[in-house]
């Protein structure tokens, strides 16, 4: 404590001194006569000028940086702001020719209306079912496969792994065409499983987790074997805890995938009972241009976006880490 205080004091003093010397510098620069009176040589005067210009430049650059970043931040945030305030306005207020930047009257009722119009309850439920089931199953498959590729020895391992990696090059649309036929032939359309099963194996996640597993020293595995630990127990007690950040990242990305998926569900499960949130939102509000009840529509959009924000607020670290490490565009 005492140390801190003295430190603070000394920095304060330093600050004061700096201010003082800055003031003096300014005086030198502006009042040439005074400088001569103080018997400063020309050379020293020039040095002072340079110091001042440097300082001014530095401050200006910092001001410019913050100004630019703040403007960009406003641009980035504006759509969210507009979504929220629009969702709280009355229709009449929204349509004022001069828009208001804060609602005169908070219309929380818009949210209830939006919830009912788009039957968001069912959509939330469907999306959660698909999201949670597919995440859990996908994690199990990913962990088992990644473990086999990282730790077990079997014939054709490298060939198989290379073949899997090669499929990552191919755009998803190419798979969709045939998968659409396959699930239709299987009679899976308008079920939950059609939304879950085709995407359970993600080569990319297997690759990501395998890389993570490989970083765990092999001695840990050998030590566990000497102690008679079974592979499954080792996986559960050692590998999974150590690779937890990657697994959390995968979970978040997978859940976000269910939340944001649009194309596939629209093709194969667009009935009332199984529809997912994004499709529901788009279906409920087909008109985006012209004379639209925007406050209600924005309330619905806010409701759909809100869980994502929650995830973002609490798990930002994992998302940012996961995305920067894996470089996936969701």
């Amino acid at each position, binding site marked *: 404590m005492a140390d801190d205080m003295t430190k603070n004091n000394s920095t304060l003093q330093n600050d004061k001194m700096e201010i003082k010397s800055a003031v003096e510098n300014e005086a030198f620069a502006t009042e040439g006569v005074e400088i001569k009176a103080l018997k400063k040589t020309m050379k020293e005067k020039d040095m002072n000028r340079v110091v001042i210009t440097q300082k001014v430049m530095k401050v200006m650059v910092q001001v410019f940086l913050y100004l630019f970043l703040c403007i960009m931040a406003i641009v980035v945030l504006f759509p969210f702001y507009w979504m929220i305030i629009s969702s709280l306005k009355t229709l009449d207020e929204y349509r004022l020719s001069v828009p208001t930047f804060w609602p005169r009257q908070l219309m929380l009722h818009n949210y209830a209306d939006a919830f009912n119009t788009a039957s968001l309850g069912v959509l939330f439920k469907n999306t959660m079912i698909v999201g949670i089931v597919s995440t859990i199953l996908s994690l199990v498959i990913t962990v088992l496969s990644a473990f*086999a590729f990282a730790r077990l020895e079997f014939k054709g391992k490298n060939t198989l792994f290379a073949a899997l990696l090669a499929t990552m090059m191919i755009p998803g649309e190419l798979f969709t065409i045939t998968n659409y036929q396959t699930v239709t032939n299987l009679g899976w359309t308008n079920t939950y499983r059609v939304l879950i099963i085709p995407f359970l194996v993600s080569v990319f996640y297997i690759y990501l987790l395998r890389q993570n597993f490989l970083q765990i020293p092999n001695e840990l595995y050998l030590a566990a074997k000497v102690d008679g630990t079974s592979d499954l127990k080792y996986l559960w007690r050692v590998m999974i805890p150590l690779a937890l950040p990657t697994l959390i990242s995968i979970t978040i990305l997978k859940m976000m995938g269910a939340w944001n998926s649009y194309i596939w569900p629209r093709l194969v499960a667009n009935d009332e009972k199984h529809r997912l949130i994004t499709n529901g939102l788009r279906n409920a509000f087909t008109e985006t241009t012209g004379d639209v009840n925007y406050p209600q529509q924005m309330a619905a959009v806010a409701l759909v976006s809100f869980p994502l924000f929650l995830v973002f607020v609490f798990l930002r670290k994992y998302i940012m880490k996961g995305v920067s490490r894996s470089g996936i565009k969701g």
Partner: protein
Amino acid sequence: MVDSKQQWKAWIYLAPAIILLPVFTVWPIISTVRMAFLNGYKGLEAVGGATFNFGIENFTKVVKYKKFTQCLKNTILLCVLTVPISTFLALIIAVCLNSIKVFQKALQTIFFLPYVTNSIAIGMVFAAMFNIVGSFLGTSNELVQTAGIINNVIMFFGGEKINWINAGSSYVANMTVMTVYIVWNALPFKILILLGGLQSINKQYYDAAKVDGTRRIRVFWRITVPLLSPMLAYVIITGFIGGFKEYTSIVGIFGEKMGPADDSKRLNTMVGFIYDSLSTNNQGRASAAALILFGIILIVTLINLYVGKKRVHYA
């Protein structure tokens, strides 16, 4: 290191993946290529027992198909517009973020926010911001009208309001809106990657430049950009791949009509074309278009790799 005769154990661990992959990954590749090379292949007719000749008719037809060329043009245009703009903007923002100390984390978080959004949902917000309620020409029998917040801002600065997305809007206006939205959407990912790259550059390079009295702008072009080139290359290539698969952001703003009310499908993209063909049961055409998309992505990747070998510096 460990001797293992128990190969079967590995295969048990792999079993779920090994069962699912052939069905939903391997077979689709074979089948889609097959359909693409069966002239005029239609799934329903095939079930009915019709046979199709082997050939490249799907490809020759599709490239002459006006709807397809429109889609191709839209897709390429969006790529060419959005990738350079978003990359450059992201680079500038990342460099600025990297040179401040106070609020760096907070600002970084704000810039990442658009990543965790639903592109359909936020597309609807953008539509609201650009939309004009009421007749654009402002006839007197309109009760209330708002030109939309964007137009209001433009008018505040003394500009003319523009019909961005409503019926009667121009192609250029539509594309501008799409560019703004896609760039907004693409920024967070690029900023994150580039900032990560910047933070891993050894500070010594900058100290050396400082000692030599190198100007900021020169430091940027001669040190930052070359040392960041692997990340830049990565961001650009993923940008192009993402751009060629653009679809949902247009659905977000314009709805499934993929264009303003009076000219639907005007903004359709490659992916949109594939799904339209699929829902009209033209699997042959869809497969051919998907293979063309794959080809384009492959070429872009190869070009990037080739240029990368010559230009990218790995520190």
